[in-house]
């Protein structure tokens, strides 16, 4: 299990390739499900120029470990990976990477989604958007439903 919070932009596909190289479950896992969340250049009908992602150092890491650990147990995962950005993010940059490895696809798909939904609703991150065209800044007040 690997969890990281990054101030710098990251390439999820490179991260995934590098993690696979040293995956303890290599040869045993038959499935890997991956989710990548990317910043859009619009939200609620407005153009967004950039945003700042804030977190609660200490609690955010602990909460991620808790929710990923719970999914690993529930779905009997062989491994899981979560990387999340903080700081200033611009449209097109990736915000979050979730990967789940298991023996079969069902558990990998289910766990990947479960981790992502739990992260969205319980991991202490907050987004503040800067709108395009000098429209000012605003806090994102809630996440959209994942269904």
């Amino acid at each position, binding site marked *: 299990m690997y969890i990281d919070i990054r101030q710098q932009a990251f390439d999820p596909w490179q991260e995934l390739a590098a993690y696979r190289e040293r995956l303890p479950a290599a040869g045993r896992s038959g499935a890997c499900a991956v989710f990548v969340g990317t910043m859009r250049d619009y939200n609620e009908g407005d153009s967004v120029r950039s945003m700042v992602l*804030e*977190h609660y150092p200490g*609690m955010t890491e602990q909460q991620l470990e808790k929710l990923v650990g719970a999914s690993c147990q529930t779905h009997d995962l062989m491994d899981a990976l979560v990387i999340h950005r903080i700081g200033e993010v611009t449209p097109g940059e990736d915000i979050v990477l979730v990967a789940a490895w298991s023996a079969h696809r069902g558990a990998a798909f289910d766990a990947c989604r479960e981790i992502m939904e739990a992260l*969205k609703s319980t991991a202490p*991150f*907050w987004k503040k958007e800067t709108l395009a065209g000098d429209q000012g800044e605003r806090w994102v007040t809630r996440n959209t439903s994942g269904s």
Partner: protein
Amino acid sequence: MTINVRFFASLRERLGLERAEISAEGVNDVRDVWQAVSDQPLDEELLVAVNHNYANLEKIVEDGDEVAFFPPVTGG
């Protein structure tokens, strides 16, 4: 005999306060902590954590605890 209080995101901006240190004397639960730092009613939507774990307003706090108040989370 202190309790460390932290505020995040829009709540921090609204209160103009990132951290507060309050005396633990006479403070029993999270609700008491909020009343010691703000004269405004506690917004129902706000979330609370004690020592990095989610908690409710009735959670008993002790000397040295860190209590955090913050709005609904919006990561991912």
